């Protein structure tokens, strides 16, 4: 064996206990959260913050052990009697422990970050994962943990004092780094962030150099370095305080300028791009459908006992519960329409048809390329962010097109949405505000404040704006409706809330979609070809690296599957109405009801379909190879034997998402009864 091999081997033997224990603890923590969530002990998966506690913990575990165990067990003299330089030993240890730390970081991120996005992240995790600074953050902390702690604690004279100095400096540095990241990624005052970033980099290098010096000189020569160490710790604390204060002050800056920006943005808004004749026809046809629906809905409305029925859980299958929702009103209208009005089928079919057009076709690979190429490259942050986007934002992109503007919309929407959540939490917990202020930065903060003011105004005029759900939908809706103009400043200011246009939700959505398509054509996807094959295959590679990402990928297919299955369900319903029974095969639906039979977007094959006397069942294969069986009955008195057989067949492979989503579809006959 070579010297480096045995050095690495001995490092691994020494550190493996800590490593495995830490990894095991992390997995246990993950499982605990998962189980608690499944048992509904916790409703919200806001565990993003855990990464901020777990990661420094890992750092401490790994960093401490690097040199300290060597010194504690007094094996350093043995190691230093071997013909290998101290410098090499330092770098071997440093790099090896750094790699262990990175492995644990990847594990931590892959477990907690996707989990956290199931719900509302209550911590500013996005400020970290939306930036390559997580890499810097990791390295920075790792270096500190190792270079400071180990040589200090081994010092027989003053090790304890050094340890205390470090204990003070460490949390201060963590807070400081958060501030740096916030400034770098959020602030308009980028130069401040850049300066702080440089300071942090210098600190890191200084720490690394100090560690190197300690190992190569201090241990050998026993010079008293307590003073410089205390000085370093003091400087670290001081710098962190400066960083924190700067971030804090900046976060509250200039509400007035936000207002000015809002006014300017209003003035500078450009008109929407002209529609193509085809798009006009699309929009007109859809609007006709909508109007027909609306008039019928108006006729039905007085008969409805209350609006609350539509919010019941059994309707969630129509739209999914964890993808961006259409405006509630539209959802209600569409749901009612689909459930009660045969004419709605046409409207919905039109919608689906538009979405199915070739240049609007959803492609996760295309999305991955775009995200990876535009924002993040091949690094870990890229993976984390892509997973997040694939899961939560695919539907938005699906509807909004895949233009740079759409991406910008999304980014801003995320920022503002998160910021609103955080800002609102201020009212619950004042100490939390400090963290919020640091994490979201001044521009967004100003936008949020302005937004809150607008909200108050609107609330005084229209009580329904107090509804939090509605507010979020307005944001979503408004974001959709503004593809042009100085989007950035406009969205930042929150001024769009004053615009009446956001109310024209579904119509706008469809109009702008066509406009997006044009932009998309113009862009000709030139950027997509520049992406490396590794990234192209990311959606296939990622689940192998990060198992939990399978959920994300599945998530991005889910809306598509839902649209297609919705189309099929409706077609089956029409067929039943015409012929009195469900077809033997799906093929019978074409061309009478549907022009072509839609295929499973995941597999590219036909959906599994089994007809029964009183209903049918369908097999829906998801990207992670899990198969969900759904059973539908359309009569008041379903054949209990058939139903029981179908249920027995429904062996869904359990996955957290299946468990949440996989509730059987509602029995529509019962629903009708209820409505009536």
């Amino acid at each position, binding site marked *: 064996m070579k010297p480096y091999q*045995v050095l690495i081997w*001995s490092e691994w033997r*020494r550190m493996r206990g800590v490593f495995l224990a830490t990894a095991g603890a992390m997995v246990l923590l993950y499982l605990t959260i998962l189980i608690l969530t499944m048992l509904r002990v916790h409703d919200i998966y806001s565990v993003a913050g855990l990464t901020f506690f777990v990661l420094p913990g890992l750092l401490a575990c790994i960093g401490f052990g690097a040199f300290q165990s060597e010194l504690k067990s007094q094996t350093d*003299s*043995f190691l230093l009697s*071997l013909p*290998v330089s101290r410098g090499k030993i330092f770098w071997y240890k440093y790099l090896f422990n750094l790699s262990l730390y990175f492995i644990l970081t990847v594990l931590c991120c892959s477990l907690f970050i996707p989990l956290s996005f199931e719900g509302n992240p209550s911590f500013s995790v996005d400020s970290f994962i939306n930036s390559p600074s997580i890499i810097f953050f990791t390295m920075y902390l790792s270096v500190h943990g190792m270079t400071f702690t180990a040589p200090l604690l081994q010092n027989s004279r003053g090790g304890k004092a050094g340890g205390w100095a470090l204990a003070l400096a460490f949390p201060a540095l963590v807070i400081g780094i958060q501030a740096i990241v916030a400034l770098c990624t959020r602030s308009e005052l980028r130069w401040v962030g850049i300066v702080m970033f440089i300071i942090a980099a210098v600190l890191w290098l200084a720490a690394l150099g100090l560690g190197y010096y300690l190992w190569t000189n201090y241990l050998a020569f*026993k010079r008293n370095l307590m003073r410089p160490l205390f000085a370093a710790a003091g400087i670290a604390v001081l710098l962190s305080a400066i960083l924190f204060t700067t971030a804090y002050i900046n976060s509250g800056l200039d509400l007035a300028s936000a207002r000015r920006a809002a006014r300017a943005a209003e003035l500078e808004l450009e008109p929407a791009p002209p529609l193509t004749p085809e798009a006009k026809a699309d929009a007109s046809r859809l609007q006709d459908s909508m109007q027909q629906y609306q008039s019928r809905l108006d006729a039905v409305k007085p008969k409805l006992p209350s609006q609350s029925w539509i919010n019941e859980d059994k309707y969630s299958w129509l739209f999914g519960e964890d993808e961006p929702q259409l405006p509630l009103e539209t959802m209600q209208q569409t749901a009612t329409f689909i459930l009660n009005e045969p004419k709605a089928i046409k409207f919905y079919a039109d919608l689906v048809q538009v979405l199915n057009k070739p240049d609007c076709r959803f492609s996760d690979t295309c999305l991955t390329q775009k995200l990876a190429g535009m924002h993040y490259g091949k690094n870990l942050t890229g993976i984390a962010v892509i997973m997040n986007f694939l899961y939560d934002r695919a539907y938005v992109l699906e509807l909004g097109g895949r233009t740079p503007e759409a991406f910008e919309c999304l980014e801003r929407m995320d920022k503002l949405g998160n910021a609103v959540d955080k800002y609102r939490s201020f009212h619950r917990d004042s100490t939390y505000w400090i963290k919020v202020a640091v994490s979201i930065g001044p521009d967004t903060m100003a936008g949020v404040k302005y937004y809150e003011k607008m909200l108050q105004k609107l609330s005084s005029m229209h009580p329904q704006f107090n509804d939090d759900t509605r507010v979020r939908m307005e944001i979503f809706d408004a974001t959709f409706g503004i593809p042009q103009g100085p989007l950035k400043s406009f969205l930042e200011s929150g001024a769009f809330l004053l615009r009446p246009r956001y109310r024209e939700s579904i119509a706008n959505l469809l109009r702008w979609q066509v406009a997006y398509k044009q932009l998309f054509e113009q862009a000709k996807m030139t950027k997509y070809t520049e992406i490396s094959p590794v990234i192209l295959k990311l959606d296939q590679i990622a689940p192998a690296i990060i198992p939990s990402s399978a959920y994300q990928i599945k998530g991005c297919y889910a809306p598509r599957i839902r649209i297609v299955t919705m189309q099929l369900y409706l077609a089956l319903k029409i067929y039943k109405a015409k012929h009195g029974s469900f077809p033997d095969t799906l093929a019978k639906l074409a061309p009478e009801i549907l022009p072509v039979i839609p295929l499973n977007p995941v597999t590219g094959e036909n959906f599994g379909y089994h007809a029964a006397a009183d209903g049918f069942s369908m097999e829906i294969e998801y990207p992670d190879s899990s198969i969900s069986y759904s059973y539908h009955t359309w009569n008041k008195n379903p054949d209990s034997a058939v139903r029981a057989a179908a249920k027995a067949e429904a062996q869904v492979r359990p996955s957290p998402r299946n468990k949440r989503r996989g509730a059987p579809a509602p029995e529509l006959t019962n629903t009708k009864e209820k409505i009536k």
Partner: protein
Amino acid sequence: MSENAIVARGVRKAYTRKKEVVKGLDLTVKRGAVYALLGCNGVGKTTSIRMITGQLAPDAGEISVLGLDPVKDAVKLRRKMAYVAEGQKLYDWMTIDDLIKFVKAFYPEWDDKVCAHLLKMFGLPRGVKLKDYSRGMYTKAALLGALCRDPDLLILDDPMLGLDTAARREFMSGVVDAIHEFDRTVIFSTHIIPEIEALSDYAGIMVDGRLTLEAPVDEIKASFREIRLPADAGDIPELPGIVSVRNTGEDKIVTVKGVESEMTAAFHQAGFRFFTVNAMSLEDVFLAVTAKKQESE
């Protein structure tokens, strides 16, 4: 190639401003010799050894080990030299085979035959973790790692420190043979002298950070004599060559250095009629030399 393996001139080392541990060490070790560096606890033996091995840098003076500078050419030197530190600690999780695998990787000249031979000679059990070894076996394991790499220079810094009598004997039973077979330069730092007296060619006695005596062992033993006088003998005059005077209650013991006949004549001339002259062991000489210093303090 120089005939000296180690040459140290005017070497000084202080850990703090007030505490100078080595105060001008002059030391010469010839190639191929077994050199016993003797001294009480705290006189600077270990510090001197650590400077010789390059683990500490001297504040002043020059050291040359196998023609190399121990600090500047540390890696090169460590390839040629083996060092077993005082209370040497190894990786406790290792077995003896793990240790061999680990150390062997750094030395292309590692000799498996010697290793197998020493393993047998030392009687080290395989498959047992080092932490479960007795203290004597543990130290032997460290020595094995040092010897099998065929070093030009072997430095053993008080390897018996902390060993009880049984462990010391267990250790020495193997080590004496091994060092006999090892025909390179050896420095043995210790204050437990009887065990290494027979092994050593040269001895240097350190007192208060300096080497007060350095000579071949035989020469030391030949040049020192113990003159035993009755307890009621008068005061000992200040004769040249007297190293120390001790009163045991029954006898007065004078350690002298020089030619025996000349010293005897001097004592006769001083009026002493009844005394015996005895040869001294290295340990006796060590005690006398260190006692003198203590008296002077």
